[in-house]
């Protein structure tokens, strides 16, 4: 029973991190209809940026590292859009060409990171030490903090979409591109901002994931696949639709590990993915950015 409860808790923790990483994927697709195949490597890059500052000393540098990582990833995202995706989108067949470009660019970036940081596993240390006990259940303060950060981030993001002019313009573009043009939204500018925002969010999710798990240049593909399965529940382009599937899949993963063994995690993830696609290819929960 105790191990069951502990599995649920640890599932909720990893699930909220998976939900956070799925957000970046779904934001870009929702607004611009570009599928970011470099998603995982973007998360990894954000994590390495934070790690770089961290490794040059001190706990304070982790906060600094996160801030720098958010800023650099935002700028990187807008530049990627401006100089690669934007010209591709002006040509026919952009839905395929952008996917291929991002896939190729992702592999390139993965190998650049491999050259710089090497293949050895890095980890970002926990943000806070210690643990708290609720009867038989032990929760690390760090895990609790991760959930709080992930939930807080999602709430802030939703408020941004709902209440700011820029967020509303992103939602409008997601719901109808011609409609957005007709009301006078500069959709190319919105796409650029969306890429910046999504890269920052994705990079940040990479930092969070690396405090819980580990970091190497290849781990991004795993994160991307998980993000993709989560997003398939809500339908690509739904931010709210990423949250509950993230939590549920996190719990499923923890229970599978507990009762069947870790080797069953991936087969179960993919089985769930296939079932979702068979039942409702547009997503079970629906709803857009």
């Amino acid at each position, binding site marked *: 029973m105790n191990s069951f409860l502990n599995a649920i808790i640890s599932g909720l923790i990893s699930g909220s991190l998976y939900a956070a990483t799925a957000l970046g994927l779904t934001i870009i697709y929702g607004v611009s209809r570009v599928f970011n195949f470099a998603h995982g490597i973007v998360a990894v890059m954000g994590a390495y940026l934070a790690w770089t500052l961290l490794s040059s000393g001190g706990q304070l540098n982790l906060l600094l590292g996160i801030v720098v990582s958010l800023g650099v990833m935002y700028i990187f995202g807008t530049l990627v859009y401006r100089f690669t995706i934007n010209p591709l989108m002006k040509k026919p067949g952009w839905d395929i060409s952008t996917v291929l470009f991002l896939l190729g660019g992702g592999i390139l970036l993965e190998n650049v990171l491999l050259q710089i940081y090497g293949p050895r596993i890095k980890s970002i240390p926990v943000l806070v030490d210690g643990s708290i006990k609720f009867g038989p259940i032990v929760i690390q303060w760090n895990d609790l903090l991760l959930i709080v950060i992930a939930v807080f981030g999602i709430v802030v993001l939703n408020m941004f979409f709902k209440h700011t*002019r820029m967020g*509303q*313009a992103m*939602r*409008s573009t997601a*719901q*109808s591109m*011609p*409609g957005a*043009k*007709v*009301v*006078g*939204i*500069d*959709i*190319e500018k919105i796409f650029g901002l969306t890429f910046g925002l999504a890269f920052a969010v994705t990079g940040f999710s990479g930092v969070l994931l690396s405090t819980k798990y580990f970091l190497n240049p290849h781990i991004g593909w795993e994160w991307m696949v998980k993000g993709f399965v989560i997003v398939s529940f809500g339908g690509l382009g739904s931010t709210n639709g990423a949250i509950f599937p993230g939590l549920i899949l996190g719990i499923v993963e923890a229970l599978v590990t507990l009762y069947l063994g870790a080797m069953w995690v991936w087969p179960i993830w993919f089985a769930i993915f296939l079932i979702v696609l068979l039942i409702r290819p547009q997503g079970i929960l629906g*709803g*857009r950015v």
Partner: protein
Amino acid sequence: MVNSGEVVALFGPNGHGKSTLLKTISGLHQASAGSIKFNGLEISSLPSHKIVEMGIAYIPEERHLFRDMTVMENLKMGAYNRRARPSTQQNLAFVLEVFPRLVERKDQLTSTLSGGESRMVAVARGLMSEPTLLMVDEPSIGLSPGMRHAVFDSITKINREKKITILIVEQEIRNALKLANRIYMLKKGHILFERSATEVNVEEIEKAYF
């Protein structure tokens, strides 16, 4: 050629370029040749958001509403451009006066509206951008006769009260003629003829369709 304050109707068979013309003026399509001038300025190479900012609003036949937003949110998005934003409240009051039905519907998602109501939201959203030229594509298509009258009446009102110039594409010839000062007949992408409302006759227009 449309003069300030006029209502001009475009007629012509389906697929002969009426909607394409409006889409090209509004910057949704790129013109392959020719020029489009607005208040003497060449606008054919401008992107759509610049054109909205200059005061041209386009109401597409397909409406293109934001489906997961309420009527009110849709209207406020209409005032997105920098020029219209300061007067959002006045414009909102005016469009709700023209379309009183939308007051009852203001908190409903637009995906739950009827065809006629969606059309009203589309026109109202276009007005929120504070245009001097309003281009409306087939406002009455698919509507009940009662709803059609409501939509035509509101377009007349928009023209009279706000002095907004109107360019309308319409298949409902008789209704459109009541509204228009002048008409153009388009066929195969060219102007077949032009008439003022006083000299026009319905038979001539109907004949031109075949």
